[in-house]
């Protein structure tokens, strides 16, 4: 995944001189998750800019450079640190096009690493994709596979509006096919059906797609059940058509996400499924998500706090 992300940035920088990157430790250090390694050498410190630890400052600077015609990518080391920059994202990046009556636009790509599971404790294990998806004006991208990551990130650089591009730390090492084609773009708002079946629809994004996938394996191996597995790929825009038409076939759905369940984005998906497939539902839509607790450091507790494929299987069995 890491290489696919790097390749997308590299290709877009080669293609368009307006693209530049900035962030904490993206240069000499090579990026805290090594996504930008090598780019400083190739493009130099003007276009691969190391910054002080000033998230609000650099996101705002990205907005400013975007207003002046550049296409900045600002890397926020992890989603946890986006909280100190949230005002810039919400009150500036997402709203300037609207508030100016369409006069300006903000082609800004914000990349950030997300997710728990590495025993980093409560301040460093957030999954806040859903929080960003709540704000009109933002596009929120959450790839689950390297090929999609590349195509979606390249597409993000073409977007005239701000894109929040969220990478799950557990997936950086993930392998998969990645098209070489420098025009391989994946469109926003198009979910992908990564597996199909008849008994239940499993819906995920980012890391949780893999839990859905493994749960589907377990369901078929251990219980003779087959599942549609839907990878949303972007959660704003959200491709509910794919979800709804699947649920109308399978009559059951489980939505899976890492984030806390209470007030999480799975509630939106569940509510929309109810709204649009009520008469087809044989059971309430289930949500399998993070437990409502600050992330513990202890490994067992952390494991218990995160949703697992077993939890998904259990939720499916409970609705039969």
């Amino acid at each position, binding site marked *: 995944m890491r290489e696919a992300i790097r390749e997308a940035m590299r290709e877009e920088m080669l293609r368009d001189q307006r693209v530049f990157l900035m962030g904490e430790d993206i240069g000499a250090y090579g990026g805290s998750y090594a996504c930008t390694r090598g780019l400083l050498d190739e493009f130099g410190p003007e276009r691969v800019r190391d910054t002080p630890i000033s998230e609000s*400052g*650099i996101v*705002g600077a990205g907005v*400013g450079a975007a207003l*002046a015609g550049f296409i*900045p990518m600002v890397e926020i080391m992890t989603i946890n640190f986006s909280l100190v920059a949230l005002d810039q994202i919400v009150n*500036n990046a997402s709203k300037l096009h609207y508030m100016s009556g369409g006069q*300006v636009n903000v082609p800004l790509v914000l990349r950030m690493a997300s997710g728990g599971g590495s025993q980093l404790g409560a301040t460093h294990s957030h999954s806040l994709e859903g929080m960003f998806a709540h704000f009109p004006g933002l596009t929120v991208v959450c790839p689950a596979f390297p090929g999609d990551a590349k195509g979606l990130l390249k597409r993000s650089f073409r977007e*005239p*509006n701000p894109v929040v591009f969220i990478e799950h730390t557990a997936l950086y090492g993930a392998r998969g096919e990645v098209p070489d084609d420098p025009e391989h773009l994946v469109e926003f708002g198009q979910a992908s059906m990564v597996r199909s079946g008849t008994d239940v629809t499993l819906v995920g994004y980012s890391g949780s797609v893999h839990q859905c996938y493994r749960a589907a394996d377990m369901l078929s191996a251990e219980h003779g059940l087959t599942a549609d597995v839907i990878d949303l790929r972007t959660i704003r825009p959200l491709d509910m058509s794919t979800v709804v038409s699947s649920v109308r076939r399978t009559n059951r759905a489980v939505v899976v996400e890492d984030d806390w369940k209470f007030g999480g984005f799975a509630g939106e998906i569940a509510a929309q499924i109810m709204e649009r497939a009520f008469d087809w539902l044989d059971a309430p839509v289930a949500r399998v998500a993070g437990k409502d607790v600050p992330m513990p450091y202890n490994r067992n507790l952390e494991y218990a706090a995160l949703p697992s494929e077993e939890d998904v299987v259990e939720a499916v069995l409970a609705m039969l």
Partner: protein
Amino acid sequence: MSVGQAIPTTVGEPPDGDLQQQFLYEMLLIRRFEEKCAEMYTRGKIRGFLHLYTGEEACAVGAINALRADDKIVTHYRDHGHALARGVEPNRIMAELFARVGGTNEGRGGSMHIFDVSRNFLGGYAIVAGHMPIATGLGLAANLSGEDWAALCIFGDGGVGEGEFHEALNLAAIWKLPVVWFCENNGYGMGVPFDDSLANDVYKIAASYQMPSVRIDGMDVLEVYSATQLALAHVREGNGPYFIEALTYRYRGHSMADPELYRTKAEVEEYRKRDAIERLKRSMIADGLLDETNYQALVARVDAEVDEAVAFADASPEPGLHTLYDHITKEYEGDAE
């Protein structure tokens, strides 16, 4: 002029008679426009928060006239004066305040968010200090583009309390970006006196980032103009940012909703005696650049323009409900762009 640290000493051209006329005209226009706004607010034509600029005209007019057309401006929510000084049509500003389609922002933005991209007026911002990092980004863009335009960032003394002040100044300083920071220190952030807000003078704190930093009389348009010229010359030459603290005063409350419990009428009267418009008028008369007749003609001209702005705004339709979802995002047109 107090100086935070050594600054260049060459001064730009002193403004000639025509330019002084222009300053006077613009200050009068702003004064009259703001008074009309107050009236229109009372009559319910303008709504929401309305922060008037009366008393501070010399800042906008002096600073913005020093800019080139390709320089970019961002400012705070007390922004009518800045927009007018930048040449944004009064008609379109008033229409925006009336929330009409003929407004600068098609009625979406309102008083605190005036934009006019055709004049590189990149907006009024309503989150205190929230636009300061944007100015840093504009400076970065100027640098990356290799062009010699600059960014002017106008903000209030209250904004200096926010962390973004620090982040924005620091980034601009370490990257040597062409940003002129212009602090309108009107003595109050809402009702909190400046002296209770910051541990030192603004320009001294700014000087600690190793940029030239000066304190000027923000009620003297000629001083503001010349200080900003100096600042722009400095930043255009690649020397990094420059900081100006302009001491000024707002005659009205913070916004139309302000009960003004925190200051006395006497204090306001004291400042009115140093009125920037009166001062320029007097000096121009003394220098033979103006007489009472010209002056009255100017007043009549701005009166007419402001009346015309109200008429224009009133005649402009409200945006239709079908346009509610317009402008949330700019449409993607593939790689045509």
